[in-house]
């Protein structure tokens, strides 16, 4: 049984109990515990169920590599699935639930899968569920899906806050073990700006647990001194609970900081985006499990994890621990257990001979060591009851059984190469240590082509304390170009390991089908072998076929063993088989931290006009246009949106309406070559426009397609003011700058996007002039300001520029004033207009009024494939100009064809409103069996002015077919006939706007 020891535990404070709940039970741990150590202290060995076979699983590791002990933590909106118990600090009131079982952890119906496992080998699902065909969707898939997933989904919405933080540093060091600390000391003393981060809450890494002696004293003393030295350096920043998550191109490092494990006051997590001149990975090494039958039974753990639990938390995974190893380091675990007063009945060592200093120490304490021996099988179901032994060099014939309640295994150590590899760093196979380690000659390279990541310490394959500090010292000194000495480290010399990819070496199928490689995804040795047999011989195929390494631990424990098995099966060398690709993040990070501050009100910028608050206060319903929001309509209480729109149109046509047009783009184009530039930008001839006048203009892209339209005002001989669509302002300004800077850079033209300088209000309707005159300040009579003219002046004491343009067919003025005075003018117009029946109107009324007049709308009549000629806008395309942007594009055969779909109006025969986007059908079908089409509705409304449906449409040769009736198909298969007519439904001679 697992238990709390009466002594030891360097990270816990036994005097402060912490209560928590696990699967509804109230349990107690102590301050400093992780959830995993606290559960072990309560003899809760069973911590979860595996993914596929629902096998009982206990904790296997003590850090982020843990594959089994995943828990649902927290409650309600703060619930979080798949938390590793090994990384979850025990906080008061913590609630945790184990996962992937029903009805309970102890008794799980899904465990039937384990019994059926012979029918469920790797890839079985590709081979079955084929018949009958509908059964996949209706029977098989739902069943498979029901058993999918691990934790239960979070509930949301998440009440917590997250943020990002951007820094630039000379050197970012990931990993705060002795190697990382030493690297920071050297770089810091050399005057570099340094950011040192450590994923756990402690500095020092493995050294204090492993008992290294540094500079003649315990490692902890050296660590404390190093931390103090670093803290005193102004150019060094240190962060704990900060995980290096990913390395990206050009020295970009992503790191994830945990700020709170409970209910946070400030942000819960912080994502660091670091621009580093150089990145140092001092991420240590991870121990490998050994594949033997039953290596997944709760109570089988990594030897280093056993040591961590004993030394750090004063928790023993068992009273009698058998150790299985192929190397000397595991003997440290034996010694730690003995030191804690626990029993180690046996050490099973796969090596034919066991001689090193550490084994000798164990031997000297009376521990039985069996060389050349293997574990044939672990006995027990929900916890270890004993082990059966056999010869390593055999097939598994059992020679002896030993009773124990825990097994500590060590297959050797692999450097943590993830961050090194994310951006292309390559690893080489080190046969002596049986692992892949970063190859300094094939480091990831940055913007200048030189290496930007350096691995040091155990992460570099220099595993033991002495060489770990040695590599950190030598490499970082070289990097920052100083000389430095490594502190003296005393470690026990270790005899070489003997690679052991399977116990026993020639295990039977029966045993191999119980040897787990990937614990979470239940991938066994036999699965990898089956994949190889079936031709999935690329390591990437094996991964995808078996799901090896695809679980939430991303194969931190399984990858090397898996590819060694694959290599063995293929008769290849391990380096020829290679690794799969390492991808960020190093360990999973929350979506919330990635989204950062962008939630709620600041999810996206919301652009507001100066009148925004007024609209809001007056019940506007909104239409998002880019990041702006424009009022769609202003329904009054009890009024439907549709009715409001109809009212707004009628009122504007009868009295006077106000439209907030501030969002329209306003770009100033100035210079001696401005007119020439304008002629290239617009399809129209703009150079002939007179100062004081306005002209409606069209802009195309080089393909010839219409991209924007708007009114251009000539301010003086060399200055134009270009109005663009709301969505177009930034885009068109960028378009202008692009042409000016990259094509016509010798032209003397400056542009300025003055969109936000002005609030713009359209005052529209027969009483518009009266309303403006009532505010006083300007003569806006027909003579003083004719149609398509503009004039500067003052209205109601506010400096204003008034344009006489109309997008509604009514008498209409657009008044531009400085934005900070826009609201004042609006208020005055509303107040003064009361007597005249003034009402604001929104975008929908605007749309209807322009459609009644047959004016096109970018985005409705155009969709990126429409040219001005399609819209009957030939009059706005200058024939006199040799060139304008898009002219050549429009000359291409398909665009110049005479059977293009062209703009017309439509009237349904029954007055109904055609649906937006409906297509006009033609006879027959095309070569692909699709119904032939001859046009489509581009805009369609109920016209309050005409009292019936009106529509604009693009119809094949449309303008030649006025009067013809065509049928529009409804989605239900019915058809609605409509007569082709002029798109100008209202006031065709433009009499109303020109008064």
């Amino acid at each position: 049984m697992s238990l709390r020891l009466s002594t030891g535990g360097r990270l816990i404070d036994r005097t402060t109990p912490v209560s928590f709940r696990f699967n509804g039970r109230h349990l107690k741990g102590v301050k400093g515990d992780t959830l995993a150590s606290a559960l072990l202290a309560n003899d809760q060995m069973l911590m979860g169920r595996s993914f596929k076979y629902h096998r009982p699983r206990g904790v296997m590791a003590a850090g982020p590599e843990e594959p089994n002990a995943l828990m649902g933590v927290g409650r309600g909106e703060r619930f979080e699935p798949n938390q590793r118990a090994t990384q979850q600090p025990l906080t008061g009131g913590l609630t945790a639930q184990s996962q992937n079982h029903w009805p309970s952890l102890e008794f799980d119906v899904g465990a039937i899968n384990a019994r059926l496992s012979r029918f469920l080998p790797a890839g079985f699902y590709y081979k079955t569920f084929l018949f009958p065909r509908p059964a996949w969707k209706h029977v098989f898939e739902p069943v498979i899906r029901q058993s999918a997933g691990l934790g239960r989904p979070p509930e949301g919405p998440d009440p917590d806050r997250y943020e990002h933080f951007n820094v630039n540093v000379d050197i970012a060091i990931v990993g705060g073990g002795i190697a990382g600390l030493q690297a920071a000391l050297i770089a810091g003393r050399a005057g570099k700006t340094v950011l040192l981060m450590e994923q756990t809450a402690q500095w020092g890494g493995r050294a204090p647990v492993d008992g290294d002696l540094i500079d003649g004293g315990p490692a902890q003393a050296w660590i404390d001194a190093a931390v103090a030295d670093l803290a005193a350096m102004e150019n060094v920043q240190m962060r704990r609970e900060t995980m290096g998550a990913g390395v990206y191109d050009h020295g970009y490092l992503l790191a994830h900081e945990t700020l709170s494990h409970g209910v946070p006051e400030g942000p819960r997590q912080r994502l660091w985006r670091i621009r580093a001149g150089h990145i140092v990975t001092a991420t240590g090494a991870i121990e490998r499990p050994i594949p033997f039958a039953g290596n997944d039974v709760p109570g089988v753990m990594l030897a280093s994890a056993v040591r961590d639990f004993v030394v750090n938390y004063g928790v023993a995974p068992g009273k009698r621990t058998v150790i299985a190893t192929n190397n000397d380091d595991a003997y440290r675990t034996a010694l730690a257990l003995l030191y804690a007063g626990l029993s180690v009945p046996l050490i099973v060592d796969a090596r034919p001979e066991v001689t090193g200093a550490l084994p000798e120490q164990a031997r000297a304490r009376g521990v039985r060591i069996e060389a050349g021996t293997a574990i044939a099988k672990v006995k027990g179901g929900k916890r270890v009851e004993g082990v059966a032994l056999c010869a390593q060099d055999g097939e598994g014939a059992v020679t002896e059984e030993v009773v124990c309640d825990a097994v500590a295994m060590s297959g050797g150590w692999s450097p943590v190469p993830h961050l090194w590899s994310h951006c292309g760093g390559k690893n080489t196979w080190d046969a002596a240590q049986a692992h892949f380690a970063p190859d300094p000659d094939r480091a990831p390279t940055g913007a200048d082509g030189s290496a930007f990541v350096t691995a040091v310490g155990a992460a570099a394959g220099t595993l033991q304390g002495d060489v770990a500090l040695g590599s950190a010292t030598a490499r970082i000194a070289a990097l920052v170009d100083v000389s430095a000495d490594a502190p003296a480290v005393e470690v026990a010399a270790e005899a070489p390991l003997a690679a052991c990819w399977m116990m026993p070496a020639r295990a039977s199928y029966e045993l191999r089908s119980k040897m787990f490689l990937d614990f979470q995804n239940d991938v066994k040795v036999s699965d990898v072998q089956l994949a190889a047999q079936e031709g999935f011989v690329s390591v990437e195929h094996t991964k995808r076929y078996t799901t090896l390494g695809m679980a939430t631990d991303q194969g931190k424990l399984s990858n090397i063993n898996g590819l060694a098995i694959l290599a063995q099966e293929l008769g290849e060398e391990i380096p020829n088989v290679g690794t799969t690709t390492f991808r960020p993040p190093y360990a999973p990070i929350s979506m919330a931290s990635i989204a950062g501050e962008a939630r709620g009100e600041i999810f996206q910028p919301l652009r507001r006009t100066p009148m925004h608050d007024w609209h809001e206060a007056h019940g506007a319903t909104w239409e998002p246009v880019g990041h702006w929001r424009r009022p769609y309509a202003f329904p009054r209480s009890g009024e439907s949106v549709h009715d409001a729109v109809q009212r707004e149109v009628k009122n504007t046509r009868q009295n006077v309406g106000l439209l907030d047009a501030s969002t329209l783009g306003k770009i100033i184009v100035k210079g001696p070559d401005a007119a020439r530039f304008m002629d290239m930008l617009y399809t129209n001839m703009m150079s002939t426009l007179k100062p004081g006048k306005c002209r409606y203009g069209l802009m195309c892209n080089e393909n010839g397609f219409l991209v924007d339209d708007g009114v251009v005002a000539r301010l003086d001989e060399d200055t134009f003011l270009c109005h663009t669509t709301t969505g177009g302002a930034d885009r068109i300004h960028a378009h202008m700058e692009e042409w000016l800077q990259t094509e016509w850079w010798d032209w003397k033209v400056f542009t300025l996007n003055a969109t936000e300088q002005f609030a713009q209000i359209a005052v529209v309707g027969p009483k518009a002039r009266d309303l403006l005159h009532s505010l006083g300040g300007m003569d806006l009579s027909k003579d003083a300001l004719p149609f398509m003219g503009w004039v500067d002046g003052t209205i109601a004491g506010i400096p204003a520029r008034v344009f006489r343009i109309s997008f509604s067919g009514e008498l209409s003025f657009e008044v531009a004033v400085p934005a900070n005075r826009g609201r004042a003018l609006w208020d005055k117009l509303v107040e003064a207009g009361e007597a005249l029946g003034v009402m604001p109107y929104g975008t929908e009324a605007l749309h209807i009024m322009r459609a009644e007049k047959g004016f096109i709308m970018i985005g409705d009549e155009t969709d990126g494939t429409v040219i001005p000629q399609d819209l009957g806008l030939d009059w706005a395309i200058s024939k006199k100009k040799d060139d304008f942007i898009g002219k050549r594009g429009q000359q291409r055969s398909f665009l110049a064809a005479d059977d293009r779909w062209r703009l017309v109006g439509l009237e349904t025969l029954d007055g109904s409103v055609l649906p937006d986007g409906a297509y006009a059908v033609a006879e027959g079908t095309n070569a692909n069996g699709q119904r032939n089409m001859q046009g489509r509705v581009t805009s369609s409304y109920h016209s309050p002015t005409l009292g019936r449906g009106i529509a604009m449409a693009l119809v094949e040769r449309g303008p030649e077919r006025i009067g013809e009736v065509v049928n529009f198909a409804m989605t239900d298969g019915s058809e609605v006939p409509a007569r082709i007519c002029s798109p100008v439904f209202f006031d065709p001679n433009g009499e109303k706007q020109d008064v």
Partner: protein
Amino acid sequence: MLTLQCPYCGVQCDETELTAGGEAHLTRHGPGSDADTFEQYLFLRENPRGVHFERWRHAHGCGKWFHAARSTTTLRVFGTYKAQTTEPPQQIRDAISAVHPGWSWRNFGETA
């Protein structure tokens, strides 16, 4: 996550301060150009595995367009230069040659 130095203001730009603008050194062809030439100009793109000349705009900054010579496989940047030129400066060509002897790109490169 690229960083490119803006040759106008000297800022070491984060990729998120820039907008990418595709292939550099295109010659515009307007009315009067034949179909081949126009297609070439508007559509047919250099898409090398290796050195590429491309356009960028320091959009969240000084607003200027500039050119970069960059490898599409290693993302190494051989240099950036102002957009008001029809060919890459010699020193950038030399920097490329030092790494990729015999390189070529459209009309530029080493005639090895």
